């Protein structure tokens, strides 16, 4: 007994200490040396023990809460923390590390209670002793700190505090309270005697226990109303307030003793009841493992022994089991077991494939249900089980020829016994969820570990499943469903590089062989033609473009992008589609680069790179938070959108390609407009890199990719193409970037040629004014280009009036015309530019005053991520084509 008092505080009234005992009774069993008690102890597992400790402490805390005994609460809380620490290994073992719900509930309630008390300043000052107040403060702090660890769970609990459960529980308490009202006196008196030990129930068989439980709750339903009336009459104003709160209020109001007593009684009953219940719950986990071994005894529970098992009976039983799905009290693991058993029964009695399939679908659904959390992935062993089950089921579905599975079939219309079978269900949703789970699983693994690779091996299975479902759906050919499954398939296909494709392009493969591009083509074309929701089509187009871009089909990819007009409308679509759009644009840029279309590559990538949030835009990782830019929920949602690692696009490659293309465009442009007052920047990001390197007082040899590009740009500015090339193409850069390309050598060749050409242009821009004439063969030699190429480049520059020169054919030289304007002349020219600007702006101001102002503008700003897309349309050389060709 002294042990109790050690924990309980001295300020407690007698009655409260009385109450204490009941809950702590089980713990006290150790002290008793009764034989009976002894045997009981043997049965209990460590888990039970730990849980019991926890629940007892929780109950204590609840009591203190009601009394507002802060100091005792503080000590109990500390104890609770310790107990939980002790229980952790057990929890990790039994619950897979998921914090038990009752524990969370306690934390949550405490938090609420404390914040309530804290908020109630008047009451605090008036009613609280100094000691109490101190404890309250420290408790508040401690709790806050502690709760941080469970933040997620608690917030989840807050969202869904299972009220139904709570009510039910309370109802039960009330009923108990009523029924045992008479016994309350003896009970309080005879508190030294142990109340019926809950662990006794352990010995009774499961089924019985369950029945009893059911009965009890049914009764409570009847009784509940009475008790409700009673309580409401006792305090009529608080009728609508939740029961728990009512208790709190009473205590704060310090109502009459009578009520207090009653309430205490209630409390006691409640706790007793709860304890029992919890024990039942706890036991649940254990019994099951036993049950797996002794399947036979539980069989009669399914069907009466002599019952003739037929289709109807099995289906009825199935619906019974399924009906329990999703309810709070249902044991999910048990459900799976039950369904398996049912399947065994059905198979044993040869009830036909339809019934088995139906049961299998139920099994799949319950495996899905097994993981109660939406955001977390399921456990790997269940995942494997799930894959197998789905595979089996689909094989069966495919084997049975006359079978329709559809959501349109109502329960009543299902046909199980004769061939044109009809089953209600949806294969599509199964695949959808499977795919979702798969992504979640992948995201949970560390992408650099073997685990990820192991998991990724399941991709094959998932694809196989999708193929099977496709085969199944093609039999029925409902176009909307087919579109869905095709898109699912497309989404598993589009980011994979098929080495067959280039071979096919070169004509190495025999005719009629199907590469992934062909598959994509057929699938996407079907979606284009048949889809009625815009979303599927948009996604299909994007995936299609992505796939083309991946396989170097630049023209097809470009035309598809231009024809789809997606650049104008993409900002109205949902975030995942926008992410897909970004990914597609990234690959389109890479593809353009490989095809030496530097301008297009730059335009594709500029919007992604300009923001500096490539990672976010491609959903390949979150940026570190800056001043709480996003809330918890937002972050969670964003996390869900992340791409699994194997679908990532290499960011360094992307940036390098962007910077190199910016360099190839920007450097000659800079050289050409060196003295131009109205020069504008083509690529901001590139400029930033240049400037940051210029700011350094000492520039060392380049290390990172960016430094390489900057160094190369500087070399190019001087027309030193070989240095530029060596900076761009060397071992370091090869390893970092270029080797990531398919046919890297071709890309490198293209790149060095481009560098030579652009360096030549830069050279001419920069140094033309020092020459009177330049010999073309010398230039060709300098830049190691063909003379015809040099000729062509110079001709182009002359025609475009970039270079004031003309060719002298007999001597093969370029004759410069432009005499460098004298200082006065250039100043005069600048002045004219400025005067021109002035007149322009005058005219504009006048127009503005005239009221033609509204044509400008349009709304600026908008959604953070979406701004880019608006700009996209302008940059990209837009070619409007009517309609779609498909």
């Amino acid at each position, binding site marked *: 007994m002294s042990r109790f008092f050690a924990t309980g505080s001295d300020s407690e009234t007698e009655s409260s200490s009385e109450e204490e005992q009941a809950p702590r009774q089980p713990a006290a069993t150790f002290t008793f040396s009764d034989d009976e008690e002894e045997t009981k102890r043997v049965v209990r597992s460590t888990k039970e023990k730990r849980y019991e400790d926890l629940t007892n402490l929780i109950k204590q805390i609840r009591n203190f809460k009601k009394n507002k005994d802060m100091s005792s609460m503080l000590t109990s809380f500390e104890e609770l923390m310790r107990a939980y620490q002790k229980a952790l290994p057990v929890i990790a073992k039994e619950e897979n590390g998921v914090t038990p719900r009752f524990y969370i509930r306690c934390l949550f309630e405490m938090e609420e209670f404390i914040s309530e008390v804290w908020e109630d300043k008047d009451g605090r000052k008036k009613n609280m002793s100094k000691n109490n107040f101190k404890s309250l403060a420290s408790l508040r702090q401690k709790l806050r700190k502690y709760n941080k660890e469970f933040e997620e769970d608690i917030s989840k609990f807050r969202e869904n505090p299972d009220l139904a459960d709570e009510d039910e529980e309370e109802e039960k308490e009330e009923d108990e309270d009523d029924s045992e009202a008479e016994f309350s006196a003896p009970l309080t008196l005879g508190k030294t005697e142990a109340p019926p030990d809950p662990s006794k129930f352990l010995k009774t068989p499961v089924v019985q226990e369950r029945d009893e439980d059911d009965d009890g709750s049914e009764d409570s339903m009847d009784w509940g109303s009475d008790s409700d009336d009673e309580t409401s009459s006792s305090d009529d104003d608080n009728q609508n307030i939740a029961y728990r709160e009512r208790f709190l209020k009473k205590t704060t109001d310090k109502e009459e003793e009578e009520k207090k007593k009653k309430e205490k009684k209630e409390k006691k009953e409640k706790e007793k009841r709860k304890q029992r219940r919890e024990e039942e719950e706890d036991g649940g986990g254990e019994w099951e493992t036993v049950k797996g071994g002794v399947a036979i005894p539980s069989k009669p529970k399914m069907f009466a022994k002599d019952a003739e098992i037929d289709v109807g009976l099995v289906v009825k039983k199935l619906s019974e089991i399924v009906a329990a799905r999703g309810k709070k009290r249902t044991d999910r693991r048990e459900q799976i077991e039950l369904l398996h058993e049912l399947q065994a029964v059905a198979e044993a009695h040869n009830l036909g494939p339809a019934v088995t399939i139906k049961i299998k679908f139920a099994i799949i659904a319950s495996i899905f249900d097994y993981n109660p959390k939406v955001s977390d992935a399921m456990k790997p062993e269940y995942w494997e089980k799930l894959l197998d089950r789905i595979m089996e089921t689909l094989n069966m579905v495919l084997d049975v020829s006359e079978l329709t599975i559809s959501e349109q079939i109502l329960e009543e219309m299902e046909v199980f016994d004769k061939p044109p079978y009809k089953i209600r269900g949806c294969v599509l949703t199964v695949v959808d969820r499977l795919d979702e789970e798969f992504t979640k699983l992948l995201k949970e693994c560390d992408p650099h570990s073997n685990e990820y690779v192991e998991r990724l091996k399941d991709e094959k299975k998932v694809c196989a499943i999708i193929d099977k479902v496709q085969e199944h759906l093609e039999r029925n050919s409902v176009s909307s469903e087919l579109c869905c499954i095709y898109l699912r398939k497309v989404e598993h296909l589009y980011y994979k590089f098929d080495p067959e494709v280039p071979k096919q392009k070169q004509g190495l493969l025999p005719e009629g062989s199907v590469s992934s591009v062909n598959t994509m083509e057929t699938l996407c074309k079907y979606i284009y033609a048949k889809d009625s929701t815009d979303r599927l089509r948009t996604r299909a187009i994007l995936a299609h473009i992505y796939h083309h871009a991946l396989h170097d089909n630049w*023209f097809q990819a470009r035309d598809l992008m231009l024809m789809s007009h997606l650049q104008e409308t993409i900002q109205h679509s949902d975030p995942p589609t926008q992410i897909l759009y970004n990914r597609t644009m990234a690959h389109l840029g890479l593809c353009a680069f490989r095809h030496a279309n530097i301008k297009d590559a730059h335009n594709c990538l500029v919007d992604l790179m300009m923001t500096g949030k490539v990672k976010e835009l491609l959903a390949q990782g979150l940026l570190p938070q800056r001043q709480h830019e996003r809330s918890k929920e937002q972050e969670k949602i964003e996390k869900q959108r992340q791409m699994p690692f194997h679908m990532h696009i290499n960011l360094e490659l992307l940036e390098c390609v962007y910077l190199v293309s910016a360099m190839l465009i920007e450097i000659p442009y800079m050289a050409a407009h060196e003295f131009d007052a109205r020069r504008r920047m083509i690529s901001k990001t590139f400029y930033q890199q240049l400037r940051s390197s210029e700011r350094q007082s000492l520039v060392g040899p380049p290390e990172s990719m960016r430094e390489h590009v900057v160094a190369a740009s500087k070399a190019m500015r001087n027309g030193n193409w070989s240095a530029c090339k060596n900076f761009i193409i060397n071992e370091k850069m090869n390893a970092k970037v270029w080797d990531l390309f398919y046919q890297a050598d071709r890309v490198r060749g293209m790149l060095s040629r481009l560098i030579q050409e652009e360096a030549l242009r830069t050279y001419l821009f920069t140094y033309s004014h020092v020459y009177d004439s330049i010999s073309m063969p010398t230039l060709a030699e300098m830049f190691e280009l063909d003379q015809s190429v040099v000729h062509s480049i110079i001709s182009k520059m002359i025609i475009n009036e970039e270079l004031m020169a003309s060719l002298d054919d007999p001597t093969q030289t370029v*004759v410069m015309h432009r005499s460098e304007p004298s200082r006065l002349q250039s100043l005069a020219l600048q002045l*004219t530019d400025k005067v021109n600007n002035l*007149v322009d702006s*005058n005219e504009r101001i006048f127009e503005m005053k005239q009221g033609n102002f509204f044509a400008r503008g349009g709304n600026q700003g908008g959604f953070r991520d979406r701004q880019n897309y608006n700009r996209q349309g302008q940059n990209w050389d837009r070619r409007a084509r009517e*309609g779609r060709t498909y």
Partner: protein
Amino acid sequence: MAKFDLTSRMGQYLDRHLVFPLLEFLSAKQIYDENELLQGKLDILSKTNMVDYAIDIRKQLYPLQEVPESLKNRRAQVVAQLHELQNEVSTILKLMSNDEVMKTMETMKDSKTLLNYLTKDYDFKIELMDGMYRLAKYRYECGNYSVSTSYLYFYMLVMPSTDKNFLNVLWGKLASEILVQNWDTALEDLNKLREFIDGNTFSSALQLLQQRTWLIHWSLFVYFNHVKGRDLIIDMFLYRPHYLNAIQTMCPHILRYLATAVIINRARRSALKDLVKVIQQESYTYRDPITEFLEHLYVNFDFDGARSKLHECQTVLYNDFFLIACLDEFVENARLMIFETFCRIHQCISIGMLADKLNMNPEEAECWIVNLIRNARLDAKIDSKLGHVVMGTQPLSPYQQLIEKIDSLSVRSEALQALIERKLKARSQDNRWGAQEF
């Protein structure tokens, strides 16, 4: 040669009757096997009612075989049905033979008043028009194109443009006019049809695209035969975005005709830039010597390549039904283009090299250049000792640049000032009026 022949690609966008001229042309050129061509013609004819023609071809193809009975029977059938159709609409046919009525009809603008007039005075029923339509179609299928044009003309006079057959009638009319080679009316019909297609909202973009593609192909007949066609083809194909889109998506081979039209049209050099852009964009789906010639000349400035392509172009043009007429013009203009570009880049050119690039011998080339200089198209002089042409271009001096830049400034400022003054005056007047009222 067959490599650059477009007949098979064009054929799918043409009416079967319109394909005959192309096939006739091909058989004259003897690129393909004669018998294959005949067989092709026969296949095409099998679905028309031109039985006599079919019999002729059959005789050519199988000179030893007798004409099968079935064809003879068919002929009788066709004639019988024609009579039947004619009987159905005999009232209208009578009307049409009456000159007076036709004249009054043409004066009436509104189809409604016309209809009233006809029903009141001549026992005309609107239901007969369907029969008329069928008859016109039948006549067309028999090869009596001119008759069918007059029938369709009548139909279009009477029926409003909302009629369900109106589009088909327009197409039929255009085809018949093309086949009777009445280019002026064909052009009119073409424009009508284009307006109808552009103005009408068909059920889907796809159908619209299809209609436009057909129109593009049919219009080739008109444009390359009509006097004004060369300007119009550029306007329609290059500067109407809808049609340009149709060409890009459905039939990039039309670029050959567009390119040729631009090259032979000296007045429309400005279109070249736009054309080159389009050609570059589509270079992956379609290329032939003509587009490649432009590409070499204006994108790569590869004069040797351009020269060799020009050589190929000649054979392509020679074997193209539409383009054979402008072969000489094309060569002349292409040469001029090469030369012009050359001159813009060069300061000094040796005549021998130039002659080589232009596919001419040096004397001829010199003569050609002298003519150009004489016609003041070229500011250049010939140095006959060295055999050079020296361009007389002067570089732009800073003074000129300066003047160019400030040229418009004063005009613009004055205009602005005048505007402001007028505005001020107007306002002060308003004020004065306002003050008087009180």
